[in-house]
């Protein structure tokens, strides 16, 4: 058996629906159709009345989830694309994210955001929005990079008592495969050493982990051993694991697919330099997408996002410092 990242997400939802009567799924076309990406395929049939088509009303979709959470349910909301969550933004950041702090009543909702660039998707079906959610207090922001994490972190997202923004990368949906689903997992909040190395640390998350790993492999023949840290969740962000890695390597490159201003890469560098300045032998560097909307044409798109080649080039420069 081999299972894709997308299937893992479907399986996690099936598992959650099976194990916990409080779970339901609400989103556009998630019912009989099985979702725009088929992440809920067959679930409506398997769990009648619990996988429900929503009108095109992102604001009300999140509002409904918050109300249901207050009543003890554990809704999973599927946004058709992460980009459309901007229309439900207010309910996420002001309603869901503040509920526990204001009232002591937790808000266990999971908002699934199919996100990130794929070829030909253009400015409104490609966005990486983890930063705007992580900036607000009260949200957990998960960014699984592997099939195993997609599965186990989604289960954990549903299980924890807090609102989770679950950023699932569309580029990984079909590309990424694993032999089987995991029975154990690192807890959320813990980063993972995706590859060990001694010469440099590359911190990445989601699809960029794979670009980083490819870059690391590319650098082996040149004699470099690159360590790759997969953040897994960007909020909370596991500074300790990052710093321990930088302590070993002395060099830090942060890679993110999001826009450059104020995102995960800035946050990682700010933390490492303010808390672990002495660990760095050379200036930390970062690599992000360009500061424009995500372009449609593949020629532009591959230049807009960091690729393994770009990561390797940045790494080489850093190694030479």
């Amino acid at each position, binding site marked *: 058996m081999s299972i894709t990242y997308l299937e893992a997400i479907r399986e996690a939802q099936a598992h959650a629906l099976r194990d916990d009567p409080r779970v*339901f799924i609400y989103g556009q076309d998630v019912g009989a159709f099985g979702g725009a990406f088929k992440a809920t395929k067959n679930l409506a049939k398997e769990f009648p*009345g*619990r996988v429900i088509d*929503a*009108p095109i*009303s992102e*604001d*009300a*979709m*999140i*509002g*409904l*989830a*918050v*109300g*249901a*959470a*207050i*009543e*003890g*349910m554990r*809704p999973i909301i599927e946004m058709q694309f992460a980009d459309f969550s901007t229309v439900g933004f*207010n*309910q996420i950041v*002001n*309603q869901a*994210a*503040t*509920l*526990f*702090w*204001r*009232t002591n*009543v*937790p808000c266990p909702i999971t908002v699934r955001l199919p996100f990130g660039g794929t070829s030909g998707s253009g400015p409104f079906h490609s966005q990486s929005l983890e930063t705007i959610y992580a900036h607000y*207090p*009260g949200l*957990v922001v998960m960014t699984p990079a592997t099939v195993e994490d997609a599965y186990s972190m989604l289960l954990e997202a549903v299980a*924890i*008592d*807090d609102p989770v923004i679950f950023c699932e990368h569309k580029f990984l949906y079909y590309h990424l495969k694993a032999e089987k689903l995991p029975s154990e997992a690192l*807890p*959320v*909040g813990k980063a993972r050493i995706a590859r060990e190395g001694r010469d440099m640390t590359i911190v990445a998350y989601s699809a960029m982990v794979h670009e980083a790993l490819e870059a690391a492999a590319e650098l082996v023949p040149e004699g470099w051993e690159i360590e790759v840290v997969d953040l897994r969740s960007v*909020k*909370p*962000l596991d500074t300790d694991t990052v710093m321990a890695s930088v302590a070993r390597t002395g060099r830090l490159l942060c890679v993110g697919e999001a826009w450059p201003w104020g995102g995960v890469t800035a946050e990682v560098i700010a933390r490492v330099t303010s808390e672990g300045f002495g660990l760095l032998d050379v200036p930390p560097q970062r690599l992000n997408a360009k500061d424009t909307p995500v372009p449609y044409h593949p020629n532009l798109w591959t230049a807009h996002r960091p690729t393994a080649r770009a990561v390797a080039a940045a790494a080489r420069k850093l190694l030479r410092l």
Partner: protein
Amino acid sequence: MLQTVLDADPVGDATSFRDTHLTAYRFMLLARMLDDKCAGLYRAGKIHGGVFIGRGQEALSVSIGLSLKKGDVFAPLIRDTAGRLAFGEPVVDALRTYLGSVLGPMRGRDGNVHRGRPKEGYLPMVSHLGAMVSVVNGTLFARRMKGVTGMVGATCIGDGATSTGAVHEAINQAAVEKLPLVLIVADNQYAYSTPTSRQFACRDLADRAAGYGVESHSVDGTDLSACLKVVGDAVARARAGRGPQMVVATLLRLCGHGEHDDASYIDPKLKASPVGRDCLKVAEEHLLRQKWADATALAALRGEIVREIEEAVAQVQREPTPDPFTEDWRAISTGHLNEGQEK
């Protein structure tokens, strides 16, 4: 002393009819005097931020609170002091929230009208207008999933909030799901300074209902009897499974938007028109005319309420306010998932 939430049946027999009016009047007066007290505390500099009162809206608001039962859901808005009290909120909760007592439901974290107790079906509003309606939908949706029947969820919006996308999405959502939502629209002629002519162009906000396929009811918001009946009916219909109900009440805001606002922009013609009647006076006259109460009884009631409020104020003013050093500065309920600059 506050009465608990009534199983109001405003169209029942004569005694219960009278009793309902008396109860309603008491909550209205309590709300009016509590609002006035808060306004006074604000002017005296004892309340930070703003004070938002429901003067003129008590008849409508109390009707909601009285039509609901324990087990129902209520998401009041800024002008619902009367409805909150009638739904069972103790006077101290309002004061504790305004004065920031840590013993209040919001513990000093949130203030003024942003209070509630979600676990008791009493939802604390966020400021973003329209945002509560779909949250009420969610509670009803969840209860239906859990097999709970016979409950309703009520929430209020103003004429201004009808222009928000959030309200539109939520009414439509409730209609598609046929949820027992009662949406009370208080058309009080102004949204802050903005008159309805700059807010919508339909003849009447009740004309919105057909576009959602929901039932709608119009009522004179200055008339307690009418409000009790119409709101009560709408709640009963929702409870009976007829889907979402919309109630559009016409009235005038008899105060500023908040207590910082002198409302000098309000059209004097409106004030002089029937829409500008004070529902509390109208209700009082009704009581007297029906001989359900006399001047002495009303004076006694007023005295009783003054004492109740003064005692509550005195108590709350002695209560502790939040201490930043012992405060739990965490926005996430799962302890280890919190992070921040300081560890």
